[in-house]
């Protein structure tokens, strides 16, 4: 670009000089005609370069998601979901249950399966398995709930 601009400035300065030094007469007419062709050539020379710039203007910038940050946030959401499920079970009379969530792999957080350890829950019996599973499923929205350590 800078070289092209310098060549334009140069050709215009040459035109001024030509105006000054050319003697009047027929020679001046032909000299000016030749000069006009040179001006057109200089002005049109970068057009091919400009057209190629259009092709190269794609940019290779890609906006990528920070997976380590997502992992940190989802870990915290998982912890708070586990606390929430345990609180829901306590509210329903099942104190001491431990909930462990397994989330689906992927960019979105989605609890897929929950394991509930009822070994420390004194009020939970084998017959309460379905109720506990139902509470946890509705609280977390997960598809599968497994109960461990239930009493007879």
């Amino acid at each position, binding site marked *: 670009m800078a070289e092209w601009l310098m060549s334009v400035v140069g050709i215009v300065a040459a035109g001024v000089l030509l105006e000054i030094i050319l003697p009047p007469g027929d020679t001046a007419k032909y000299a*000016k005609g030749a000069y006009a062709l040179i001006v057109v050539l200089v002005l049109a020379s970068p057009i091919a370069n400009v057209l190629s710039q259009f092709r*190269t*203007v794609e*940019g290779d*910038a*890609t906006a*990528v998601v920070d997976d380590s940050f*997502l992992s940190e*946030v989802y870990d915290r*959401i998982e912890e708070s979901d586990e606390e929430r499920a345990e609180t829901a079970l306590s509210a329903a009379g099942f104190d001491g249950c431990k909930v462990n969530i397994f989330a689906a792999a992927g960019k979105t957080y989605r609890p897929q399966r929950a394991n509930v350890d009822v070994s420390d829950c004194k009020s939970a019996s084998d017959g309460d398995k379905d109720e506990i599973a139902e509470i946890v499923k509705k609280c977390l929205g997960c598809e599968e709930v497994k109960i461990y350590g239930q009493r007879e």
Partner: protein
Amino acid sequence: MKRGILVLLLIIVALLSAGVCSAEESVEEELSQNVEQTLDDLDLSQLERWFDSLDEETKAALGGDLKSAIEALLDGSYDGGADKILGLTADFALGSVTDMLAVCVTVFAIALLYSVLAGMSSSFLKKQTSELIAFVCFAAAATVVLVRVGAVAKRAFDCANSLNSLMQGAFPIVLTLLTATGGTATASAMAPVMSLLSGAVSSAVTAIVLPLFVAATAIGVVGNISPSVKLDKFRSFLSSAAKTVLAAVFGLFVTLVTIGGISGSIADSVSIKAAKFAVQSYLPLLGGYLSDGLDLVLASVVLIKNSLGAVLALSVVAAVAVPVVELAVTSLGLKLVAGLVEPFSDSRFSAMLSATAKNISVAAEALIALGAAFVIAMMCAVASCNAGVI
């Protein structure tokens, strides 16, 4: 008896209120902790480097460094903002007017000198001597104008490159925050649009539009040196080409970002609301507090997303305002001098000055369009995925 029952009722109401207040306070404290933790986990290094590259006045107008600005916005103690940026821009505008005044006076003096010399040139033996004098005076005026235009063009290029760096630092973070709030459809729709803006659109401005502006300006100046070399139509073509590229690129971009942002956010809002409803509907009395567990972590991400969006939008305004003001002042100054020299000087002077003033508007439009596109993209991201969570 009745009095005893009334006192008992009052005590129960007081205890319930205290319980509610303390529950609200603990939720607020937990939210604040979540916000702090989320902010620490977020990698803001690229954006912080961009903020460090700003001058002290601009940083102060934006509220200090990036993390402080976000925390202050969330606290409600943010002391930066539009009024500080306006003050900064006004101070700069005053300085720019003073600088431009010097240029205007110089060009006016040269044009005046030329008209005096032209009046004396009738006594010269040869016409070529008059032409030489005209050439020298015009070249002097053109040099002064080109030095000024060169400085503002450099600032315009620096601004465009700075905005490009800001976009490349900001967009991955915004997409990450959108994804973390469950806005995967919005993030998927916005990712190619943001890549387009920080890649192709930004490159089109720095590689095509601004160089065309520089070329048109230079042609506009040198094309008026000699009456036998007429380049006004060519200058007009270069200027129109720059405006056409700008209009095409940004028109397409704004269409894509608006459609992508709206459709993505509708899809996400439905899915997030469905998840929230499932939790709340199970426990009708305690659902509010228990579903807060889901909300507090996501709410902290949403708060950071929105305040980051606000800080970035203000940063763009601060970055773009100064060069645009300088371009506007330069354009107005050149138009003023063109009007003042037209009555008594050669038509080449006023033609050169007015052509240069017209071309400068292309650079200003390019910077404003780039800044506006960035703000539109940010606002679409900020406005998304709030309804389902808050």
